[in-house]
């Protein structure tokens, strides 16, 4: 394994690991706060139990997210000193702002987790709101920094050095809006569906359990709107890359040849040698239509640049297909949920819906990982698109396979432990007989009695 590949792999593993916790850290506090608010309004103990459980889960996941995020901020220098030397002054700003947002998040999470008995219930709820808001803000700042790597702005390149640095312009880069919207929605959809999926699975076995019904309801309130909006934000992102990062789009769609009226390639196995995609379904004109809203628009193919500058077409294409397929599934299930909720049907009694939601449990997270594969692999061989090559940014230190293996093992270990701890928490699902009697007057007209509103 070359040092460059080891460095890229270590960064990839670190990001892939951290993003799971980052995403949960954005969405979980929202669910926690909604549950606590419902407890305050209704006085039903089941909501308090939910808020406390989710708070426990958030505590574990946030801690792992915080330390793995620390690793990433150091790794910028440990692995990519060339990148930081060049880019620090230009793009350090969103990282600094993220530092503040993360600080606020950590402070109020401490207040929330340990403050149940120390502060008023109103202050406690607001602490939760502060966690949710600062969690979203820190995600947005980090994604802005990533967007800059895709669409660098806010400086001029003179003899390989950046001059006339304008950090505000760098933050306002062309990719920032579409990427931040796409990622924030993804966080809510992925986390919401993961939680909803677990409770849907448990409801299949025990449809009368009030605890799972309320949990499902709140999770879907967070997940479904985001999942429905996600394809629209995906369209925004795709149209951005069609103009600004045509190579990434070409790799994602496996377009080898520049062409007008380009078809949309569904699935398939890109054969890079033969410059064609086998076993794919092609929808004529659809790619031009989607990317430029014009069926005859010219879509740049990979042939526009020399093959040595191509990203890994197969990985990017398959990741992209996977993300789109999973996102579509989540959006369709969300529409189904919305329809049933609008008709005031009992969600938990619809076994097919419960199966569909249970199936969705891992899908949001897989889509998030796949989406980042598209963004990051699709940008290669550049670390700053068109400006700095990844190979020129890597540390000169040899033997990088050692830290790569070390951190991979560390993260595998932590991943297993976290999964086990959460599994134990879920196993202890409460079966309080009184709750069952009290909350399960199905069709009693009690507001929110499993109607999905």
């Amino acid at each position: 394994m070359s040092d460059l590949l080891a460095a890229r792999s270590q960064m990839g593993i670190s990001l892939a690991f951290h993003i799971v916790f980052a995403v949960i850290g954005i969405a979980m506090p929202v669910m926690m706060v909604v549950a606590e608010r419902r407890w305050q309004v209704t006085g039903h103990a089941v909501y308090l139990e939910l808020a406390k459980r989710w708070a426990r889960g958030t505590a574990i996941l946030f801690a792992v997210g915080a330390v793995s995020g620390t690793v990433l901020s150091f790794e910028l220098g440990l692995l990519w000193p060339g990148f930081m030397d060049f880019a620090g002054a230009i793009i350090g700003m969103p990282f600094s702002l993220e530092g503040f947002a993360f600080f606020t998040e950590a402070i109020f999470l401490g207040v929330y987790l340990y403050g149940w008995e120390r502060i008023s219930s109103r202050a406690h709820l607001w602490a939760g709101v502060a966690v949710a808001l600062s969690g979203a803000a820190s995600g947005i700042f980090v994604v802005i920094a990533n967007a800059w790597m895709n669409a660098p702005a806010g400086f001029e390149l003179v003899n390989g050095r950046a001059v006339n640095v304008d950090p505000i312009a760098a933050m306002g880069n062309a990719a920032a809006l579409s990427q931040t919207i796409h990622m924030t929605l993804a966080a809510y959809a992925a986390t919401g569906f993961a939680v909803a999926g677990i409770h849907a699975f448990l409801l299949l076995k025990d449809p009368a359990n009030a605890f799972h019904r309320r949990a499902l309801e709140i999770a879907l309130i967070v997940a479904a709107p985001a999942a429905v909006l996600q394809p629209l934000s995906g369209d925004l992102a795709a149209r951005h890359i069609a103009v600004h990062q045509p190579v990434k789009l070409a790799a994602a769609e496996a377009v080898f040849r520049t062409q007008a009226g380009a078809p949309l390639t569904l699935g398939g196995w890109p054969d890079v040698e033969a410059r064609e995609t086998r076993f794919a379904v092609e929808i004529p004109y659809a790619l031009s239509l989607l990317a430029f809203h014009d069926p005859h628009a010219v879509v740049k193919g990979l042939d526009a640049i020399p093959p040595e500058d191509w990203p890994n077409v197969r990985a990017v294409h398959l990741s992209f297909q996977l993300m789109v397929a999973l996102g579509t599934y989540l959006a369709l299930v969300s529409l189904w949920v919305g329809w049933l909720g609008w008709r005031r049907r009992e969600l938990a009694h619809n076994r097919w819906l419960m199966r569909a939601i249970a199936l969705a449990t891992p899908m949001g997270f897989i889509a998030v990982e796949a989406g980042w594969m598209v963004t990051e692999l699709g940008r290669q061989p550049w670390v700053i698109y068109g400006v700095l090559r990844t190979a020129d940014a890597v540390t000169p230190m040899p033997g990088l396979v050692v830290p790569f293996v070390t951190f991979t093992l560390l993260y595998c270990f932590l991943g297993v432990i976290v999964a086990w701890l959460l599994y134990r928490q879920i196993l202890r699902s409460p079966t309080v007989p009184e709750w069952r009697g009290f909350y399960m007057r199905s069709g009693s007209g009690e507001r929110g009695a499993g109607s999905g509103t």
Partner: protein
Amino acid sequence: MTLADVLAVIIFVALNAYALLGGADFGGGVWDLFASGPRKERQRELIAEAIGPVWEANHVWLILALVLLFTCFPPAFARLGTLLHIPLSLVLIGIVLRGSAFTFWRYGGSGGSHADLAQRRWGVVFAVASLITPLLLGTTAGAIASGGLPSGGAMKGEAFYPTYVAPWLNLFALSVGVFALVAFAFLAAVYLTLEADPAESGEGGELQEDFRLRALASGVALFVVAASALVLSRGRAPLVRDALIFASWAVPLHVVTGAAALAALIALWFRRWRLARVAAGVQVSLILWGWALSQKPYILRPDLTIADATAPPATLRLALAALAVGAVVLLPSLFYLFRVFKGRDQAPLVGPR
């Protein structure tokens, strides 16, 4: 004082805050490892309760210093990341294990029982990581202070050991590591005497005495370790040493630091807990600032000054503005956090349970 100097000072303030707050959290873990006597488990509970609500916020001071460093002084960050790759990676492993193990220990248990045997294993990981991380962090600081991080070494083809290992794997750097460890443990013990105050914690006075003894012992040890680091600096960090001895600010600084150190020990002796906390904080901070002054105007000796490493003025101005705005959010929030959990009079119990 240039804009770059101002930002360098702010970064060091953040590091100072990290040492006083985050450092003490590590120190708490050290005392968890060395918990002993009849009140072993109560010591551990007290430590965990003291750390629990605040350690994540305290940890962010390090992140803040780091992001400000790479925003305002990118070449310094790049060089540190390159030449100190190994110790920094080890620090990171320590940070990851300390934080996750603490949370697994406190939150992973079934039904909130912390005595759970499997859970206790996480307590051990937390404690060991709390011991090793400050050692490595201090060693890294020692490597920086020794001035052995020239840019020329960062080229491909240079020999591995002298470039990537020797700057930090030496007696002086390690002695700074030991110093950091003892300083953090000292701070933690001093703070814990307050946490164990019978009036506030509902604990008996014996627990407070446990930590008083630990504070006195580590306070004395700190003198010894500091003196040995100074002796070792002769060979490895001559420039820092010369500044610490001959600069115009050196003698006054040492006098004040020494006074603070004595005040901390005397206050502990006479059980003036709050005075001891302030004096210990001042003592450790002054030692840090002594190091900062001895480095001036260099960020990384022998050749990278603040002025050389600085980002363009536009970035610095914006960073300062962001700091001002951020402080408006951050400082009241931090004040609130510490008032709720560390305040003299606790807010009345209002919550559900």
